[in-house]
């Protein structure tokens, strides 16, 4: 049994690592206090809130835990220690995450101590399936490994645009991979899920955009692997990323989850863009696609998906200032085509085999792409990059060729062989890979596909600001795809990690 009030309080402080600083003596505390212990009564009203969410700390001392307490057993062995921030002004307990301690592996603690670490938002420990999922950011990774420390600096916008578009984006995949044949797929660490991936992606998008999180008025999270049947991922994202203005314990933001198989996120691009174009008080909106893509084990019905599923999240921030890409137009189409589904209460989806191809994927992508190009009067040669939904390598290549695109137009977006099918994040990750390299004034056509079924096509035109914003993000798609810190796991480990805590 979990205690809802305790979960609310612990995650309110722990997800963001909230603390405070005494404005009189400078003493800092983890947790929020009304007064400073040293200064006493005179410090009432003189405590400034701080948080360590975007900060980096130093691992002071550490040891190995190989007999964890009962709720931590699914983590196996892990390194536990003490992290200090601000030159030792605040010290917090720490679990090193994203690190699998192999049987018999010797740890040289002195080689870990003194190194910089970054707080990561993760699941706290295991609970019953019916309980609230506990989260925390007292999980850390080394700043000089896969996930670098990145400052979040709010940048004052200096250019307005007539049409809405993309202000910034972020892609997050874990450092774990499984490689089988010519496809490599990202695998979550055991304390990750669609919720943590959504928060990570959103965090990276804020860093890239330089947008003040308080000015984000709406957040959509598209996912088909929310560990809750009822309870939005978006509310967690809003709380942890402090979207909208915080006022008496609530965030001034509208947050909602969307579901339409793999197009749950792309479907909302137009809604997010329209919102910031509407003469209301929403300056920025955020769309996240995040999935710990599910698949039954290989020998079970639906198990074919197990060869393709990945893990990750991708977030886009829409607005009308400092755009990196303007939206030129869109088209969506829908039909009631049951090619892939998951019934409520079932852990894994089923799919329609060959039926998922021609009458499903190809039909909708073809229609959406052609219709939008027709409406905008575009030929394939007018388009620099083509991005399609990527359930496997063959499908997006076949449709790209059929629509008349050449390799140089569609290959840059093809990321499925690096990360697997990240479901709601699939075509958004492809788009991010293109935005990572596109020059100003280039046209991108993205066409998503969601089973059930439908497609969203968008035409985007990059701006000159795409270049200046590029160096704000240390984790572009290529960095995550080709990284010396990637850790490859075998099939059994992959299934265990995917199942999570």
């Amino acid at each position: 049994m979990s205690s809802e009030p305790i979960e609310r309080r612990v995650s309110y402080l722990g997800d963001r690592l909230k603390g405070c600083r005494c404005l009189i003596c400078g003493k800092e505390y983890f947790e929020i206090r009304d007064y400073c212990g040293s200064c006493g009564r005179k410090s009432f009203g003189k405590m400034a809130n701080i948080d360590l969410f975007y900060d980096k700390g130093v691992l002071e001392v550490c040891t190995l835990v190989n007999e964890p307490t009962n709720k931590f057993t699914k983590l196996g062995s892990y390194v536990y220690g003490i992290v200090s921030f601000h030159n030792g002004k605040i010290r917090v307990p720490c679990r090193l995450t994203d690190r699998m301690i192999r049987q018999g592996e010797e740890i040289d603690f002195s080689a870990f101590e003194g190194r910089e670490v970054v707080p990561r938002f993760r699941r706290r420990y295991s609970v019953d399936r019916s309980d609230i999922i506990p989260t925390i950011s007292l999980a850390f990774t080394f700043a000089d490994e896969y996930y670098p420390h990145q400052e979040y600096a709010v940048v004052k916008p200096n250019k307005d645009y007539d049409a809405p578009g993309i202000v910034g984006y972020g892609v997050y995949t874990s450092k774990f991979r499984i490689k089988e044949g010519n496809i490599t797929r990202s695998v979550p660490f055991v304390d990750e899920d669609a919720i943590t991936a959504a928060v990570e992606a959103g965090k990276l998008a804020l860093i890239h955009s330089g947008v003040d999180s308080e000015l984000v008025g709406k957040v959509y999270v598209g996912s088909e692997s929310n560990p809750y049947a009822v309870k939005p991922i978006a509310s967690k994202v809003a709380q942890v990323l402090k979207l909208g203005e915080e006022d008496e314990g609530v965030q001034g933001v509208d947050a909602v989850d969307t579901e339409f198989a793999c197009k749950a996120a792309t479907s909302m691009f137009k809604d997010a863009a329209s919102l910031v174009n509407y003469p209301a008080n929403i300056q920025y909106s955020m769309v996240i696609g995040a999935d710990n893509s599910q698949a039954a084990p290989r020998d079970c019905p639906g198990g074919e998906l197990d060869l393709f599923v990945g893990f990750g999240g991708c977030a886009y921030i829409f607005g009308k200032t400092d755009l990196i890409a303007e939206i030129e137009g869109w088209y969506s189409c829908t039909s009631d085509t049951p090619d892939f589904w998951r019934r409520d209460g079932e852990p894994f989806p089923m799919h329609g085999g060959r039926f998922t191809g021609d009458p499903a994927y190809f039909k909708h992508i073809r229609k959406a792409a052609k219709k939008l190009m027709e409406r905008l009067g575009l030929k394939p040669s007018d388009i620099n990059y083509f991005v399609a939904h990527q359930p496997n390598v063959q499908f997006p290549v076949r449709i790209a060729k059929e629509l008349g695109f050449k390799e140089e137009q569609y290959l840059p977006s093809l990321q499925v062989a690096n990360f697997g099918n990240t479901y709601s994040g699939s075509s958004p990750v492809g788009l991010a890979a293109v935005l990572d390299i596109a020059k100003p004034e280039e046209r991108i056509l993205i066409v998503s596909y969601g089973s059930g079924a439908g497609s969203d096509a968008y035409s985007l035109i990059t701006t000159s600001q795409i270049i200046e914003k590029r160096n704000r993000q240390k984790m572009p798609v290529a960095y995550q795809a080709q990284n010396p810190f990637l850790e490859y796991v075998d099939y059994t480990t992959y299934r265990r990690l995917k199942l999570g805590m």
Partner: protein
Amino acid sequence: MPNRPAIVAVGRTKFGEHYEKEPEKLIEEAWLRASEDAGIERKDLEACYLSDYFLPITNKLGLEEGFLSELTELHVPMEVTRSFSSALSNACNAIQAGRYNIVLVGGIEKMTDRWDKIRDDLMLLEDPWSYYAGCTPEANHELMLRAYIRKYGVKGEDLEKLDIALAQVSVKNHLHATKNEYAQYQRKITVEQVLNARKEARKPLGLYDFAPISDGASALILTSDDVAKKFTEKPVHVLGFASATDYLTFPARQDLTRFTVSEIAMKNALKRAGINLWEIQVLEVYDQSTVMEMISLEDLGFCKRGGAWKSIYQSCQDYRGYYEIDGRRLFVNLNGGLKADGNPLGATGGAQIFEVVKQLKGEAGERQVMIDGTPKYGCVLELEGFGTKGYVYILGGTSS
């Protein structure tokens, strides 16, 4: 200290796994031994102070006072605290204030009744954030050792010696326990066993560095100075006692290489007892881990900061029953310490007091220390949690 309380009798059970016994059987056993010792009837008791940490959790006993009332058929005031030392300090205060003349202090714990969850229960003694981050009952001991090594720059051959010194703490305590019929482990171990267990665990500390999970009970009868002589020829007096408190959150403490509580409590206890540090000859420290014994030697002032391991190492090269520190002898954890005597939390402090009382009275049998006769002064350090609370008792025998 005016109106010194006197310990007129002590009793305890063997520590270990008492699967077959209900908790009340254990406290009964300890109380009966103490009362027989002094010829006290339960009707003589004017109040009872009981200590336990986990009976509400391990045995679903929430209102322990009522359970003690049923057991003794007494309706006198009773109070329950966590550690034996906190119960004893309440009892001492009451005796000193002149409120009572004869009280019972008892401690009990039944940890093996929940062996599969007891390590989770132990996390109640740490701060919640550490628990949320994955802390274990052992982790902070290891972090303290890491911090110690880093602070004093111990490396190379010295680091090897420090590691061995800590192993020797455990070996020494096991050796002492072979003469203690109440001890949980009455067998010798070797330095190699301690080192191998660490190697197996791939951690700074291993199985043999930590006190075990135990069941057990301990009891004593505390009286005012005036009535003590009615019950015993040789009362042991509480000459001075003090306690101190520190943050629950270990990472938030200023210095990770010391227990401030021990330092403060010792200073105040010595002052109240009116004796000098080195008049203390027998010492029971709270060795929940070998690191704790080492650190405590520094906290209490017997060893220089950063230097305790050297004294331990040198004394244990050819161990003669005591630590030799700057040419002076200190007999430490003669009952085997928490490591070998056992650590049933609520009863542990009682076993520490038991040992010092027996030593001061010259009733410690095979373990008896003789320094120009029985020792005059003994000292007990008990901690709650990972140095969150510390209690120091300075006891004096009849010759004191």
